């Protein structure tokens, strides 16, 4: 059994961590493992349906990637175990050889998407991303914590030193984004597009306005969590490189 844990935040919604993906067979083809590792997915490989049950994480599998080109029998058996149940596992990506396309007939309910082997890493990546988008799975919110600050994306609540913060929606979203990327410097433009999204008209000034509000609400003691990086933008928490590159927070 191989075991790999995502090292860092990545992908669409940064405030979310993921449980591992189920991967079949065990061990998986080295090129698949490499590809998943490079893209930063957490995964765990299993040899058979029983292992899929016994190895299942407490919070459930985030999804599954089943390679069917070497052991089609075992692969489809696993798919049935994962899907023909009251709460079918989703998303499930099936990897099949070019000669196996006929095997997919009448098995539409066993998988969400498929991909031909040999896999092209970019395609695999795009398909996994898209599956998670479509099924809304794999993005289970978890606590975002940094020093005295804690955010719970599930309840939309934020607290400093255990005291709840009274935030507006946009203040909350901005704080969540920043706190999920500690040490990283963001330009105002990046924050606008990542936090406000495309439907917002106001310029980068809006970011300054909200940063100012957030600092006021964090209180004097914690306002310094958000640093102004002169002529660049903002950084939450300490610099990644441990160097105080910017002046005091203003």
């Amino acid at each position, binding site marked *: 059994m191989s075991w790999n844990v995502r090292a860092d935040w990545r992908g*669409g*919604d940064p405030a979310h961590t993921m449980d591992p993906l189920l991967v079949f067979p065990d061990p998986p083809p080295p090129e698949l493992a490499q590809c998943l590792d490079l893209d930063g997915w957490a995964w765990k490989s299993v040899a058979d349906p029983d292992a899929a049950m016994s190895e299942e994480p407490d919070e459930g599998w985030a999804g599954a990637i089943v390679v069917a080109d070497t052991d089609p029998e075992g692969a489809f058996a696993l798919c049935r175990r994962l899907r023909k149940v009251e709460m079918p596992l989703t998303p499930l990506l099936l990897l099949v050889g070019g000669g196996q396309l006929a095997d997919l007939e009448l098995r539409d309910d066993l998988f969400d998407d498929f991909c031909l082997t040999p896999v092209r890493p970019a395609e695999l990546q795009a398909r996994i991303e898209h599956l998670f*988008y479509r099924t809304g799975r794999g993005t289970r919110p978890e606590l975002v914590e940094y020093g005295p600050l804690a955010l719970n994306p599930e*309840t*939309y*609540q934020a607290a400093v030193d255990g005291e*709840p913060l*009274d935030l*507006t*929606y*946009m*203040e*909350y*979203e901005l704080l969540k984004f920043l706190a999920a990327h500690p040490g990283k410097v963001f330009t*105002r*433009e990046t924050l606008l597009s990542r936090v406000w*999204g*495309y*439907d917002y*008209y*106001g*310029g*980068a*000034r*809006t970011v300054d*306005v909200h940063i*100012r*509000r957030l600092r*006021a*609400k964090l209180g004097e003691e914690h306002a310094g969590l958000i640093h102004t990086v002169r002529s660049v933008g903002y950084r939450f928490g300490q610099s990644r490189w441990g160097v105080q590159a910017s002046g005091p927070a203003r």
Partner: protein
Amino acid sequence: MEKTSEDRLRDQRDYVLRTVEERGVRLIRLWFTDVLGRHKSVAISPAELETVLEEGLQFDGSAIDGFSRIQESDVLARPDAATFELLPWADPDEPSGTIFCDITNLDGTPFAGDPRQVLRRNVERARAAGFEMFCAPEVEFFYFADSDTTSAPVPLDQASYFDLTTADVASDLRKQTLHMLEALSIPVEYSFHEDSPSQHEIDLQYTDALAMADSIMTLRLAVKKIAMDRGVYATFMPKPLNGVQGSGMHTHLSLFRDGANAFHDPDAEDGLSQTARAFIAGLLHHAREITAVTNQLVNSYKRINEGYEAPRYVSWARNNRSALVRVPIPKPGKVDSTRIEYRAVDPACNPYLAFSVLLAAGLHGVEEDLELGPEARVNLYDLSRVEQRDLGVDGLPANLSEALDEMEESTLVRDALGDHIFEWFLRNKRAEWSEYQRQVTPFELETYLPNW
């Protein structure tokens, strides 16, 4: 993953619902504003919230100023979930939330009598031209011992500009107010004791026009509420005392385009872009027409006529405080703070309507690329009327009646406010003027009774 605006709306609603649940909110106050700029509130329970967020709250608007219509009077209050806040002065055992509403007709179209919708429309127009307007008002007000109207108001102190008075009830009040405003997402730039006894000023940090109009509504409520809790009375009446300056709401304005300050031009000698110059020209061109909206009370003109920090003449200048439009010189390296200051507005205005006409007048100048006349370099108060006329300097309307005459002729104001509010406002304000005209004032009694 990009969020669509529908996702965003759903997220905002979820945010409100979850916060209400998690924080045990017992009451949600739906806030909106009548045509005269008075704060209105309807409270609902958390049980009703989800439906109201989805469908709006239906109510009969006929009793609200400027809301009544001839055929039917039912309208919908639709909460703007982005404005949801927990009310910092609520009893901790009974947390309350507040949320600003847009008023719509039952079919979902914007209700013509809703000032917030009027400002939204004007902001949209500016966006269509590529501009976002930012506002930063300096709100002045007085603290008095009470609201007794049978005698002259009693100030809490006799301090003056920037005075630091120890054990001063009023500065205590102001400090408390600032904390409250920060808790309500209204950042304060400065606050200090103003010129007149018991007069105070709170300068808000710039934000976009709609958010700022909301903030002013909240600020007026917070200032009054905190004063009331301490047994004193706060007023935004423009000129409550004889012989001292009144309360204004000098408003700093700037336009941004593509994230850059459209008022700044690094190549111009004075740093002012042609957009800024044309915007000022538009404001000056329409100044007399928009004054009824920026200064809507009979009493507003007592402030303007008293002078001091209040402008009487339609003029602009860089550093001349008698001018209607002042162009503050930005600090070195702070070109983004290039802005202009419109000094006529008073804090008893309806901020939604006032920002609407300011934006419309300035934008009209930009659209027509109006030429800006020369800066007023002398103190206009020192000039005779003939000298002023030679300089091409007009006065602002001397009273509400004159201002209404100017407004009535203005297609710009009619366009900016929409027919419904335009006509209702004129009718209502004409009635106010006519009532005032029949009053015998203390001035008349003191001056005439002993002699005639």
